[in-house]
């Protein structure tokens, strides 16, 4: 499978007859490094298929992306069906196996993340649809012996002169015998011709999500499958010292206790017995040498580092030192601190592994199929082509199910191999919250010098925190000591500042870190958009006007978002007494989002009533999904901003379940009004960009209301606020 599929390097589409008849269309990339898609020949065994049209007329999109709520099944079906002219009623989705053909065009990885599924499939899937349609129309023209120009496809039927018509299913075998067209010969629709793209198509998998039939990883059931719960190291860096099994084995339903790399697995007939057995297991752990890890100590270290200039410089325009030393300037300085965060998807982590001597099947909700397969193969002692990853629905991902280290897959495979039986490893909520792979703890120091016009003449941002990419298979992205995600949203400050420096202290800590919805932007947007608000206040300028005055013609999208936001939010208009607005604007994942939050205080705690969110994400493939993602990002971000933190004392995470790690509830959720800036540009990210602005928007509203700055998250850390 790793052999190059494209001999010509030019790339072309190739069709083949499906195993059981019909048309199967392959599509692949000649070069992982190439930005745009090209198509290449496929193997005739359909393993590389993207599109299948069977004799019944059912169109199958082989789905190479994971559905975790972001609506990717629906969006990608729209891209394909738009050009294929398929009736959505006859389009189904089938999850893809692992194969290089399903890799991301820019990375040699099969994964879902970075808000890139639509943008990375935008050209390729439309080309695939257009190619399949072209072949079906050609097949019809030949059958009827009429010019192809007189035939057209509409809603899964090809129509010809004289009222002739044939369904896609009737034409599929004939179409499969035709040569696939060169993608360059295909004319894709212009935006004004779209009939599906841009429409609020409902979620294609909605029914199975309201009747309980949808299959998440935790719902996998195999004959003879056992369940397991692990006793995991309770503190960072500790190792197994001793364990006594008898009490665990005495629990009814427990069938075994097995030591694994990740901990001690208690294996049972059902999950309850496994959990009870784990509780009965007498395990002693050996603490590591040295002082136990503590996040308050880490915070002190970060604060101290933030005072120091770093030689790892991500951006250096002009001469920031001189600008900041200008004694005539109004000088500002602030420290912004953010905690470790757990992703806490509603579905706790889990994985089913079914190891046999000659093959391994893994069933799980994952965002990272190809690293999972590589890890599973290694643990299983099998070649990768004997390992089959079955992607289930994900009960939330948010980055936690995108672990290049494949932690939750490795342990299940190891256990199944040792048992010789299929087994489902279930993480309890406590395991999930204690399990590491958190959003990093971060500290930012911001300094600015405002000129006579009130605008920043100098801006100096120092970021302190762990690197996510270092030591992973994305290590190559770390250049000159800079993990790009540590400074994203800071080094690309959109505001015009002549003297600008962004530097980075990359720290090490025993806590494993991972991408968490919007990654580095979740930190930098809070720091930058809070501090620009502080600058505006110091300059005595309205925060929206201030931002507008700092956005030049180089940032037309920011300006357009800001204008629409001003209008839709009613910026500057009166609010009910005790309510104030706060604003934030941030670009991430190729999209620009502005948000205005309306906040009041209830018993001294912030209450967010309304959030107006405006996004420029290029062509809006599905406005309904975009609105849903903005609502989602606001609420997910608000949970973190108000309540979210994982802290450590004596090496142990202090939060264990939703009582200690609160999540926004229905009565706390704001009304979110989502607006999309009209655009004819290619689509950009949607799942994550709505998150970064919410914390600073709320913090800025709190300032407007109380004259108190919130510089540390979560906000409940600040205690009770009093309205000014």
């Amino acid at each position: 499978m790793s052999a190059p599929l494209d001999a010509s390097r030019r790339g072309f589409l190739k069709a083949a007859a499906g195993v059981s008849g019909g048309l199967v269309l392959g599509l692949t990339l000649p070069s992982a490094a190439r930005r745009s898609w090209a198509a290449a020949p496929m193997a005739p065994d359909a393993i590389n298929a993207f599109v299948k049209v069977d004799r019944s007329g059912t169109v199958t999109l082989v789905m190479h992306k994971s559905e975790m709520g972001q609506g990717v099944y629906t969006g990608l079906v729209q891209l394909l069906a738009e050009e294929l002219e398929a009736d959505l009623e006859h389009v189904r989705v089938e999850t893809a196996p692992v194969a290089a053909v399903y890799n991301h065009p820019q990375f040699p990885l099969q994964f879902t993340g970075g808000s890139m599924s639509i943008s990375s499939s935008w050209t390729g899937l439309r080309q695939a649809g257009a190619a399949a349609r072209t072949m079906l129309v050609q097949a019809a023209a030949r059958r009827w012996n009429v010019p192809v120009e007189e035939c057209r496809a509409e809603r899964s039927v090809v129509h010809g002169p004289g009222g002739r018509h044939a369904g896609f299913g009737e034409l599929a075998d004939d179409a499969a015998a035709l040569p696939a067209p060169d993608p360059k010969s295909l004319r894709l629709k212009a935006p004004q011709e779209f009939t599906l793209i841009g429409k609020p198509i409902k979620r294609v998998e909605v029914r199975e999500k309201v009747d309980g039939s949808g299959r998440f990883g935790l719902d996998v059931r195999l004959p003879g499958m056992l369940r397991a719960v692990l006793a995991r190291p309770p503190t960072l860096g500790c190792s197994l010292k001793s364990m006594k099994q008898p009490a665990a084995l005495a629990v009814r339903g427990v069938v075994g206790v097995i030591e694994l790399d990740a901990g001690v697995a208690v294996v049972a007939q059902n999950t309850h017995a496994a959990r009870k057995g784990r509780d009965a297991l007498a395990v002693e752990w050996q603490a590591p040498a040295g002082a136990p890890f503590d996040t308050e100590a880490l915070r002190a270290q970060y604060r101290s580092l933030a005072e120091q200039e770093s030689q790892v410089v991500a951006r250096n325009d002009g001469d920031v030192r001189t600008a900041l030393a200008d004694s005539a300037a109004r000088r500002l300085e602030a420290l912004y601190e953010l905690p470790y965060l757990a992703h806490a998807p509603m579905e706790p982590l889990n994985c089913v592994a079914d190891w046999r001597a000659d093959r391994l099947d893994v069933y799980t909700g994952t965002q990272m199929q190809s690293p999972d397969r590589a890890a599973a193969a290694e643990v299983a002692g099998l070649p990768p082509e004997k390992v089959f990853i079955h992607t289930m629905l994900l009960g939330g991902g948010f980055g936690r199910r995108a672990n290049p280290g494949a932690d939750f897959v490795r342990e299940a495979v190891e256990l199944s191999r040792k048992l010789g039986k299929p087994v489902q490893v279930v993480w309890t909520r406590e395991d999930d919250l204690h399990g590491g792979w958190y959003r990093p703890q971060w500290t930012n120091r911001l300094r600015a010098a405002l000129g006579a016009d009130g605008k920043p003449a100098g801006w100096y941002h120092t970021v302190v925190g762990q690197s996510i990419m270092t030591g992973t298979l994305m290590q190559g992205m770390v250049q000159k000591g800079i993990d790009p995600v540590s400074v994203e949203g800071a080094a690309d400050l959109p505001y015009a500042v002549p003297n600008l420096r962004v530097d980075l202290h990359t720290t090490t800590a025993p806590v494993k870190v991972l991408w968490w919805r919007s990654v580095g932007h979740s930190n930098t947007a809070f720091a930058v958009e809070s501090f620009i608000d502080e600058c505006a206040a110091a300059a005595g300028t309205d925060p929206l006007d201030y931002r507008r005055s700092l956005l030049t013609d180089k940032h037309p999208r920011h300006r357009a978002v800001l204008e629409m936001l001003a209008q839709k939010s009613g910026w500057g208009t009166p609010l009910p007494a005790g309510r104030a607005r706060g604003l934030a604007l941030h670009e991430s994942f190729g999209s620009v989002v502005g948000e205005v939050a309306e906040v009041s205080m209830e018993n001294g705690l912030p209450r967010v009533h309304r959030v107006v969110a405006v996004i420029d994400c290029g062509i809006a493939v599905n406005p309904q999904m975009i609105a849903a993602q903005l609502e989602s990002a606001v609420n997910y971000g608000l949970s973190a901003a108000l309540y979210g933190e994982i802290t450590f004392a004596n090496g142990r995470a202090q939060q264990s379940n939703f009582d200690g790690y609160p999540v926004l509830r229905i009565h706390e959720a704001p009304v979110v009004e989502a607006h999309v800036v009209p655009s004819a540009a290619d689509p950009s990210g949607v799942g994550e960009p709505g998150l970064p602005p919410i914390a600073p928007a709320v913090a800025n509203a709190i300032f407007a209301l109380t004259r108190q700055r919130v510089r540390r998250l979560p906000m409940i850390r600040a205690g009770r606020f009093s309205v000014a």
Partner: protein
Amino acid sequence: MQKLDINGKVHQVDVDPDTPLLWVLRDVLDMTGTKFGCGAALCGACTVHLDGVATRSCTLPVTAAVGRRITTIEGVGATRAGRAVQAAWIAEDVPQCGYCQSGQIMAATALLAKNPKPSDADIDGAMSGNLCRCGIYSRIRAAVHRAAEHGGESA
């Protein structure tokens, strides 16, 4: 042996008396629509009906369910309120990842069965124990109101 009345059908199971109903449903009967989220009655993903009342099955010993009428997401569509709620959920395109939905729908259905025209405050009261990480709360609210308006008719 325990005798359970689930969705109008009697099931015989043989589990430890302290086994939570959730794991009987999921692991013994393979009725996986009811979800595990926290194991401590903190998130509502495991919500079922016990004699029509929304109940957290993850902390409910199976013995406490014996002799009661148990309804799960697999059976709720057979009730008028359940059908209305599911239809409203689809009409409002409520789910995102979908994992908490069984619990949300069970909670909403129990609410509507008791209170056919709930106010926003009633919805808050009945639904605030059901967490959603995708943050679909405003759509849940809209769908509950829609279900209330349309009753058992197709929403």
